């Protein structure tokens, strides 16, 4: 449909309800699409097709054209797997609260196959959901009908250029598998999520924050070039200098503007790292110290991980002995945190005068006994240094925080707003859960990548650095008796995100179940601009529908 819409147009959606879409500030040329398979304003607070904010799954696409579409794909030699138990493999994501069944699964082989798939999907108006590691938590990588494109089928490293410190890889590869290949040449990636099984493509589209991001930025900023299959099936190479507009949209673009099939990434010489832990009883002090270290470029790695808001762990680590020595001489004495012995003593005193809090004390002891050894497993240490930091952290993350249900709402702000925002959100966590973890890190920004950051997890007012904090309730074995309904979890996320709206923050996970926040956070002008671009690039809105738009 080629009709276009101008400012102040109001469209009633397919359900005839109140999803009026008013473009207040801009005179944008937003192509209108077929209403009926898609709401008029896919980013309204009730944009999940007639579903209220508290609820989760969007309406499942289920059109009779599927059969014809499958035939067309088979004629073009694209294998589509329709067995229910294979679709079921992808029924949810790491969050385990959004459930959807694709009609069929395509395992990615190469860009040409994906191009054929997307062209057919446009022709038959069949939604295609792209999935890498599936480590989203808001259902962003869950297909509510249509095709699930499993990118992990494209997991080969294509070329390592040790001289120019870059690697070309297929984009479905897990960061850990990439690290395995790089380490054979004594190289390492720059930064990646601490979970080993997120994919390169899935990460470049959403961010990729590591404990070295305060120094090296997020993974998305480390991509040199990409091969992308656009929603209409063109195979395009893009970078800051070639097809830069597409590059800007695909990086941090939540899979809206194309499927990333290959990526050229910066890499670096591998180094083991010297780790230091400092323990605080005050969250704000710990964050202030973290920001002081980051602002002065003191360490190579830094971040905060809490056991409780009373025991806050500041992690500081170094790639080189020189920087570690400089830290010890110039900065160590300025940190207000304690060593392990110091915090144990402080906690012992605290619980001696607060004996009714014995459960808390037991929890802390249990946590210390199970968690600390994980971070020091001898097979991952050499001469006191950690040799496989991602393995060490990721295994601990999965073992101690992972379970079949996870919610990890987050907030990203400018450095100035961070302490206050985290403290407010900490109170919300406390209200909902007896045990939860906060994970805070800095993210260095690239001035030349400002266009990439628009409508992304990077807050609009952050200039040189942004700060992110994840809030993760413990729902696994540790808390087997603590089962939470999806409504409770959704209310928790909403309360955290409401703080973000109030302070002008952004979020890592603003898609999927949280997309009702998009207009509130980014404002109509920015959202309408992106919606117009999306509709132009993807006339039938087939690619990653319901993630953002």
């Amino acid at each position, binding site marked *: 449909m080629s009709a276009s819409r101008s400012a102040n147009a109001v469209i009633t959606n397919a359900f005839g309800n109140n999803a009026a879409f008013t473009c207040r500030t801009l005179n944008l040329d937003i192509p209108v699409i077929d209403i009926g398979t898609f709401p008029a304003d896919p980013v309204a607070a009730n944009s999940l097709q007639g579903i209220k904010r508290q609820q989760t799954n969007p309406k499942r696409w289920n059109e009779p054209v599927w059969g014809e579409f499958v035939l067309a794909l088979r004629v073009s030699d694209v294998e589509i797997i329709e067995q229910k*138990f*294979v679709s079921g*493999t992808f029924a949810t994501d790491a969050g385990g609260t959004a459930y959807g069944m694709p009609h069929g699964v395509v395992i990615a082989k190469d860009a040409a196959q994906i191009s054929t798939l997307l062209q057919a999907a446009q022709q038959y108006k069949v939604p295609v959901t792209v999935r890498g590691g599936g480590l989203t938590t808001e259902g962003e990588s869950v297909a509510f009908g249509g095709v699930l494109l499993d990118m992990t089928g494209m997991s080969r490293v294509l070329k390592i250029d040790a001289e120019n410190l870059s690697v070309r890889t297929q984009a*479905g590869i897990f960061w850990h598998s990439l690290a395995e290949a790089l*380490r054979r040449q004594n190289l390492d990636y720059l930064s990646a999520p601490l979970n080993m099984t997120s994919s390169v493509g899935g990460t470049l589209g959403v961010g990729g924050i590591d404990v070295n991001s305060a120094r090296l930025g997020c993974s998305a900023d480390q991509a040199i070039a990409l091969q992308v299959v656009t929603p209409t099936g063109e195979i395009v190479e893009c970078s800051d200098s070639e097809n830069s507009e597409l590059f800007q949209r695909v990086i941090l673009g939540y899979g809206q503007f194309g499927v990333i099939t290959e990526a050229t990434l910066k890499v670096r010489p591998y180094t083991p790292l010297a780790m230091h832990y400092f323990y605080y009883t005050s969250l704000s002090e710990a964050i202030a110290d973290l920001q002081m270290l980051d602002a002065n470029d003191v360490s190579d790695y830094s971040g905060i991980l809490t056991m409780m808001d009373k025991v806050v762990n500041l992690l500081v680590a170094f790639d080189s002995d020189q920087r570690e020595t400089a830290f010890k001489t110039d900065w160590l004495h300025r940190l207000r945190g304690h060593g392990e012995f110091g915090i144990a003593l402080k906690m012992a005193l605290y619980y001696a005068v607060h004996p009714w809090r014995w459960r808390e004390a037991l929890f802390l002891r249990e946590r210390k006994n199970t968690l600390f050894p994980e971070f020091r497993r*001898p*097979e991952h240490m050499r001469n006191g240094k950690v040799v*496989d930091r991602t393995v060490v952290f990721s295994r601990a993350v999965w073992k101690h925080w*992972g379970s*079949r249900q996870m919610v990890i709402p987050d907030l990203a702000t400018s450095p100035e707003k961070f302490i206050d925002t985290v403290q407010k959100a900490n109170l919300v966590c406390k209200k909902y859960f007896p045990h939860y973890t906060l994970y805070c890190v800095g993210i260095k920004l690239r001035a030349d990548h400002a266009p990439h950051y628009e409508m992304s997890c990077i807050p609009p007012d952050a200039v040189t650095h942004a700060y992110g904090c994840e809030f993760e309730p413990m729902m696994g074995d540790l808390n087997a008796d603590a089962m939470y309904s999806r409504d409770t979890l959704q209310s928790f996320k909403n309360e955290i995100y409401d703080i973000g709206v109030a302070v002008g923050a952004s979020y890592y996970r603003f898609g999927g179940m949280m997309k009702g926040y998009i207009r509130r956070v980014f404002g109509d002008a920015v959202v309408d601009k992106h919606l117009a671009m999306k509709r132009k690039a993807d006339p039938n809105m087939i690619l990653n529908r319901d993630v953002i738009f």
Partner: protein
Amino acid sequence: MNAKRNYSACSGCSLCLLSCPVWRSTHDIRLTPHGRAKAMQHGASANDLRESVESCTLCGACEPACPENIDLLGMVSGLRASSPLFKRRVEVGMDGVLPAPTDEISTPTILLIDHALAENPALLESIIQHFGGSLAIGVARDSGFDISHDLCDGIAIDEERLANFLSPLKTTLRVIVADGHLQHALKTWLPGVTVVSLGEALSTLPQVRQQLRDSDFYVIESVAFHRDHARLISHYDNLRLTIGCTMNLDLQRMAIPTTASARHSGKVNVDDQVRWILEGRQPSRIVVEDVADIAAFGRVTDTPVVHLANLI
């Protein structure tokens, strides 16, 4: 250790894929523990998963990686048990080929060999000498090849057959086992008897350790290693530190398997697997624990390949 869990505990984290040779060669999630567990959560039958179950080499690298502590190998043998494809029994009595059978076992240590060792009498003799000669170690006439086969294919083991097999082993102090699957089962079947893998037993001997060099590339046999990963990781880490050699360990500290002695490895090309193991490495010598790996490495590299028992 906590009790092992079943497929319903799978969270879909994919960590089991990272060291899996079948995943490495196919990048097809259906052929992985993740794919199998999730498919079973969605109602797949053993028949639905036939190809997946057949493709597994039982190298065991996935199981220690699973944060949910799922019995991933048990899952495969359980599925094989329900599939007619895996009902082929191996004849008992293949063991008559042994070079030095002990009619009446009276030695403190008994060695259970595997197929590859049965075909290499010189190496077997060398192993016997390492453990003090035939007065100290006896080679079992019945090596239980058929039992190992049944374990892998999920075939119920005949009680009488098992009792006959175990009877001479019960009276000994230590059993050294070349076959990782059998070694794992014997630990349960022979309480009170020390059951170790051939690799661990040899690599513990001072005279063997003395012969290892820092320029060696040491290839751990993966089945026994992964079956007792939590304990053996320290043993091999210590060996690595003491000698300074490199090993076929990946970043998760799983042993990258060649799969050369796997019964089912149709989806994995052993040569490609060996090439991956050696990528970026230039050892002066390759030292293997699994006899089948001698030929596997020999096909791909000119670097000398020796068995751990044949170091000079």
